[in-house]
């Protein structure tokens, strides 16, 4: 039960919100400088304007609510949920001013899609977008994937409040004893792979005769959207633009690593590489990838024929890995995807719904929850089939040895049910707007699990009601319900305080 808020809660919540807004404003300086470097004056002014606006809003909030108190649990959750909404509006301003979006709603959709690392896009004429604006789209993915609050934690927030806001951003595990150290380690992993990934993409792009400046830009953007499992691309054809198996391979490698638990990275990097073989979540993840891929292949084998094995594997496995890690990169055109056999589409929907590892950049139900539920079922079956006095204990290895408790199973089951309800609700809303059920369900799961693959529904011309629905789904899906529930309680409390 979430306790009611009082008027005294408003001050601390808005104080920390002010800090986050100021922090976001500072980040706008990165695309501003990119605009200046490329002599893109109009976008540079847009980013400068948004930077000043964010600074002004943040400063006003900090001036009005100047008293800095440690946040309690429910205040921290509210800060997180509110920060994501405010970030969406602020991030949308330069996008809207760029003229590549039909309305502010479209720009907000794009900003939420980027921050939530979804990758569904409603941009128009992407090929002619400025470097500054295109970089901002990908940079938002990177900030959102790391966690807006994690960024704030690392640079702007101090004190006892940090743990409450860290937990609110759908990160369940403290990798290191100190939360600031944990945040810094997550940055360390991401920046290490940023260097490796960018170097690899840069080399491949240069090998394709792309000019070095453009190759570097593409490489950084590809990595940021890939590692943080967002799936935006510099070109409207997404990964199909490159027509390069090496780009397919390297993107698939990094998205898979991005969907691995940061705790596993920590253990492996600190001298325990055997964790890669022992970790229950990782083993289940690989099994799940192969099982869902089997369904996709079965769909193709039954109804469809490819001219050769390589094109069969490249097309089917790339979309599958893209769906299961939640990145949403695609090496085929949307219209081709819509022609896939139903069984293969179902395989992709299941993969999208399951998602990646916990405490990673991926979305969806998360494999660890499925694993805990399976262990819970196994435990119950053992209890049923054992003599009455038998004590049944189920264990699994996830960074350390964990004994399955009833409350673990209960929490996992609740979260799985909530996600399934969110997927179905979005599907029904899609159907009510006149779209076929399978496409509507596909798009709903893609939005809620922060994947970004599309069967063609998502476009600048889809109904506004559906755009708002997907924005809400992306937000709730990324924050994993709890923070949003607490925020709703906060808003209701403001209306009728106890």
């Amino acid at each position: 039960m979430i306790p009611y808020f009082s008027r005294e809660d408003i001050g601390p919540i808005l104080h920390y919100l002010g800090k986050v807004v100021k922090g976001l404003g500072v980040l706008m300086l990165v695309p501003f400088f990119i605009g200046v470097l490329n002599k893109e004056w109009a976008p540079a002014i847009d980013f400068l304007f948004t930077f000043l606006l964010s600074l002004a809003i943040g400063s006003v909030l900090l001036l009005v609510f100047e008293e800095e108190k440690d946040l309690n649990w429910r205040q921290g959750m509210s800060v997180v949920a509110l920060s994501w909404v405010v970030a969406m509006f602020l991030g949308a301003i330069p996008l809207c001013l760029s003229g590549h979006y039909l309305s502010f709603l479209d720009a907000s959709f794009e900003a939420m899609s980027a921050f939530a690392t979804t990758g569904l896009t409603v941009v128009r004429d992407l090929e002619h977008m400025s470097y500054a604006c295109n970089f901002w789209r990908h940079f938002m993915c990177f900030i959102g994937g790391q966690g807006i609050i994690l960024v704030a934690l690392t640079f702007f927030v101090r004190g006892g409040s940090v743990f409450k806001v860290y937990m609110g951003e759908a990160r369940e595990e403290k990798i290191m004893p100190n939360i600031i150290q944990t945040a810094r380690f997550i940055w360390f992993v991401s920046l290490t792979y940023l260097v490796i990934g960018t170097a690899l993409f840069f080399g491949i792009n240069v090998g394709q005769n792309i000019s070095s400046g453009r190759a570097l830009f593409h490489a950084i953007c590809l990595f940021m959207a890939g590692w943080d499992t967002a799936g935006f691309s510099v070109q409207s054809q997404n990964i199909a633009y490159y027509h390069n198996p090496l780009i397919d391979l390297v993107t698939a490698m990094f998205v898979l690593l991005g969907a691995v638990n940061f705790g596993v990275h920590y253990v492996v990097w600190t001298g325990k590489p055997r964790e890669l073989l022992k970790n229950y979540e990782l083993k289940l993840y690989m099994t799940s990838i192969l099982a869902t891929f089997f369904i996709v292949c079965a769909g193709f084998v039954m109804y469809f024929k490819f001219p050769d094995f390589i094109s069969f594997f490249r097309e089917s496995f790339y979309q599958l890995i893209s769906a299961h890690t939640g990145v949403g990169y695609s090496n085929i055109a949307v219209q081709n995807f819509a022609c896939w056999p139903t069984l293969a589409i179902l395989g992709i929907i299941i993969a999208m719904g399951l998602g990646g590892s916990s405490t990673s950049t991926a979305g969806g139900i998360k494999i660890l929850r499925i694993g805990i539920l399976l262990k819970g079922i196994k435990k119950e079956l053992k209890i049923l089939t054992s003599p009455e006095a038998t004590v049944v204990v189920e264990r699994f290895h996830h960074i350390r040895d964990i004994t399955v408790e009833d409350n673990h199973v209960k929490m996992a089951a609740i979260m799985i049910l909530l996600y399934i309800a969110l997927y179905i609700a979005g599907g029904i809303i899609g159907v009510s707007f006149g779209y076929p059920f399978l496409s509507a369900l596909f798009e709903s799961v893609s939005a809620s699990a922060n994947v970004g693959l599309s069967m063609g529904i998502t476009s600048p011309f889809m109904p506004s009601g559906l755009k708002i629905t997907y924005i809400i789904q992306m937000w709730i899906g990324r924050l994993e319900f709890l923070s949003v529930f607490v925020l709703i309680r906060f808003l209701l409390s403001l209306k009728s305080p106890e």
Partner: protein
Amino acid sequence: MDKIIKYVRVIDRWVIGVVLELIYPLITFTAAALVCYLMYLTTFIKK
């Protein structure tokens, strides 16, 4: 000197960790390619 050895050990573990993690996806892809190839062969058996 002890400090240098300590740092070298940390870097050593870190490099091994990164290399192993980069190999890991390739193992998954190979397993998937095998599944895919077997499924692909079934299309010929069906013929």
